Every structure is written in C-alpha cells, then in structure tokens.
C-alpha cells in the first residue's frame, strides 16, 4: 500500500540552503504580502456601500464627481495597496493607477515583470463581493516592469451591472416602453406618468441614459435585448428599490457577514451530482 505522498517525486535533498542571508529578506517580504492579504480580506468583509453609489459611479462621466470615485482611493489605501487614482476610460471601462505601489516591493527576487496579481484580484473582489458585479481586471503597466505607474484596466460585465442596478421602477418603465411605440421622445415623460410612474424629469432622463448605455432601448423605444431583460425582471419577485436604499456614506457592517455563495453552491452541486 502506498500513501498519496509516495506518488510524488521523492528527493533526497532540497536544492536550496535554508539558512541563507537572503532567506530572511525573502521571508520578510512574504510576511508583508500575508499582511496585505489580511488587510484586503478585512476591508472587503467589513465594508458596506449602498448599490446606489455604484449607480452614480457608472453614470458619472467624471468619477471624481461620484461618491464611490472618492471612496475607492481610500479603500485601496486601507487594503495596503497604495493610493490609487480612478479614471473612466469608456462606458463600463475604468483605469486604476498608482505610482506608489506597495505590491511591487513584495517581490525582491523578481527583477522585472508584471507582478501586481494581489491588486488585480483585490479590485475584482471589491466589486464582486461588495456589489455583486462581475469585472475583468488586467494589469496594463507595472512599476516593476520599468513603467512609471501600475495601471489596471477594469471592465464591467454588463449582465451583472443591469441585474444588480435595475429596480422595480425600471421594470415598470420598461413595461410601459414594451407596450407603447413612442414616435416623439418629448412625450416620454407624459406617457410614463400616465402609467402612474411619477419621476423627476432628471431621474427619468438618467434612467434612459442607463438603458441606452446597456442597449436596452433604441432612442426612447425598448430594444430586443430590453424586451428579453424585461422578461427576466418580471420573473424576479424582488421589489427592491435602488432609490429607497440610498445610503450616502460608507459604513461599517454591524455584524460579521455570513459568506455563503448559495448561487455558486447550487451550480457546484448540480455539476457534481
């Protein structure tokens, strides 16, 4: 009988010296990376931000005008990742950048390359675990690679943004649009209010910009994709209202969050059995 361990390549001696002087420096760097990992976990688990802040962030052409755009640099700093600037590059595409990268210092054994996996994953986790939205985060330049800044391109997945940010009012508006063909966009406001949806013109306008960004409307009429998403929203029993849930300030969670990915669990279970 054999153990699992015996199935690996067994060797007589290690190929390194454990008591070398370099090792103490390396362990110090490894210890620092463990500390940063710990700060990231703590910050993500103890930070609660309203979904409305993400809405404002996505809708703002200048992220410094949105509360979340100002919170992100503080949060990145709390995580021990350096002070990042956040800039909107395009619809659903943002750039995080820092010239004072703490992560680059964690790899004294690496001469050059793109090393900021910790930062990329932290940004990804921030949006996923705080807001439930999916992103792709890619490091596009790195101080360790000789660049002046560490830069990260953050692309949001439209599906998850729509699913997380649309509320019951959006559902009602799309419902109206799906049953009416609007020839003159100037009549939109009155058509919507005839359906007992009362919104400030600026609010309606902002929502229409959001639908347009996500290809849910063409002009002021619902698109094919919009109809399909309306079906999904109609089948969702939630009556959440993004506006009612507005909380302007970042707050500390009162209780330790229970991390249970029931969505993922169900899929995993289904795949395993």
């Amino acid at each position, binding site marked *: 009988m054999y153990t699992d361990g015996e*199935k690996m390549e067994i060797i*007589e001696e290690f190929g390194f010296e454990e008591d070398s002087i370099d090792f103490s420096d*390396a*362990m110090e760097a490894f210890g620092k990376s463990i500390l940063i990992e710990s700060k990231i*976990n703590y910050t993500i688990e103890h930070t609660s931000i309203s979904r409305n802040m993400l809405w404002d962030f996505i809708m703002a052409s200048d992220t410094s005008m949105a509360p979340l755009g100002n919170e992100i640099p503080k949060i990145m700093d709390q995580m021990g990742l350096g002070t990042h600037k956040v800039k909107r590059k395009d619809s*659903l595409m943002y750039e995080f950048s820092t010239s004072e990268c703490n992560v680059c210092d964690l790899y004294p054994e690496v001469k050059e390359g793109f090393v900021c996996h910790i930062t990329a994953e932290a940004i990804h986790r921030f949006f996923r675990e705080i807001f*439930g939205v*999916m992103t792709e985060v890619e490091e596009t330049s790195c101080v360790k690679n000789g660049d002046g800044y560490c830069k990260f391109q953050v692309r949001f997945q439209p*599906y998850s943004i729509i699913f997380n940010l649309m509320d019951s009012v959006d559902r009602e508006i799309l419902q109206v649009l799906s049953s009416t063909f609007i020839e003159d966009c100037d009549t939109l406001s009155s058509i919507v209010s005839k359906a007992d949806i009362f919104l400030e013109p600026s609010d309606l306008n902002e929502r229409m910009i959001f639908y347009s960004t996500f290809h849910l409307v063409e002009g002021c009429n619902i698109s094919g994709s919009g109809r399909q998403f309306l079906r999904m929203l109609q089948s969702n029993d939630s009556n959440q209202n993004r506006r009612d849930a507005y909380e302007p300030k970042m707050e500390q969670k009162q209780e330790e969050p229970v991390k249970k990915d029931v969505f993922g669990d169900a899929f995993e279970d289904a795949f*395993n059995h």
Partner: protein
Amino acid sequence: MSEKLIAKFAASFIFKIPYGPNPVSVISDKRWIDGIVYLTTENLYFSFSDKKSRLSLSKIIDVKNSYVPPRHIIIISYSVSDRREHLIISSTRESVGSLKHRILVLTGKKANVKEAPGELEKKLLMLIYIGVEDIPSIKFFLNIEGNKVSEVFHMLKEKGYTDDIGKLTYEGTSLARKLKELESAESVH
C-alpha cells in the same frame, strides 16, 4: 542564478489528483498530508513524514484558490510527461493567497483576473433561459469574445445542459429555474 528560498509555512496537501474539471470533489479528510511547504525561485518543495518531494515551477499550468469549508485551499494544475494533474494545498487564507500570487509572479503570468468559467456558464444558462439566444447580445451582456461564447456553449453541452443546437435540455431548464430562485432570494436580502 542559484535557487533561492522565498517562503516556508506549515500546510496540508493532497498530491496527484487526476486532471479534471472539479478537483475539489475528491477532497476527503483522509487524504490530507500535514507538512511544510517551501517555495523557491525554481521549485515548490514539500516536507512530510521524513520525506521530501518537489514540483518544478516550470510544470505549473494554473493556480486557483477556493474555499472548501473549513479549509482555504489553492489548486495547482501541472503537467507531468504527457498528462496533467492537480495538487491541493491548504493553510491559512492569507498564506495560500500569498503563495498563489507568488507562484503566478514566478511563473511569469500577467495579472488578469476574470470570472471563473463556471460563472460564465451560469450567466449563459440564465440568458438562454430568459430567451437571449443571439450571439451579439450574449457577447455584449457577458462581455466576452465570440470564440469564448463558443467555448462556454460547448461546456454547457458537455455537461448536458444544452442540446446540439444550443437549446436548454430538461436538466438545463431545471438548473436555470433553481439558479433564478436563488438569485431572487439573494436580491431580496
């Protein structure tokens, strides 16, 4: 360059799991081996029960982390001759996280964090369920390229959730309903 030691910590590991989509399914308490993990500039070493073992970093294909209660783990996929295998390491969340990132750096991988394929499969399943079947819409909503759409469709078909023409099977529809119920429940809370 001489081989330099970079990290060392206590861990548990499971060696040589046949390569497949879900290495986590083979985890059982009996298989864990307690020992010490050493990371150097060239290799991962394991010390356990008076034995020493080695995995060259050049053989590593991919590293992922996961949480299988109560353990935080990383799954290392690597090649041996003409086959692929998995190795699982468990330790504190921070230790395995740091190890994963350090291995990614040492193996020259560029930082690019995306959703796991499973997440994309879930989203595509939901899109098909609600009637979004045209490729341009799917590409836009999931933010993925055309060849990636084909890949995810293929995975769903392989798993029996869609048929040859991309329609949901009975199993696919049942799973989509279950996922939708969970999404609704999560959005209420």
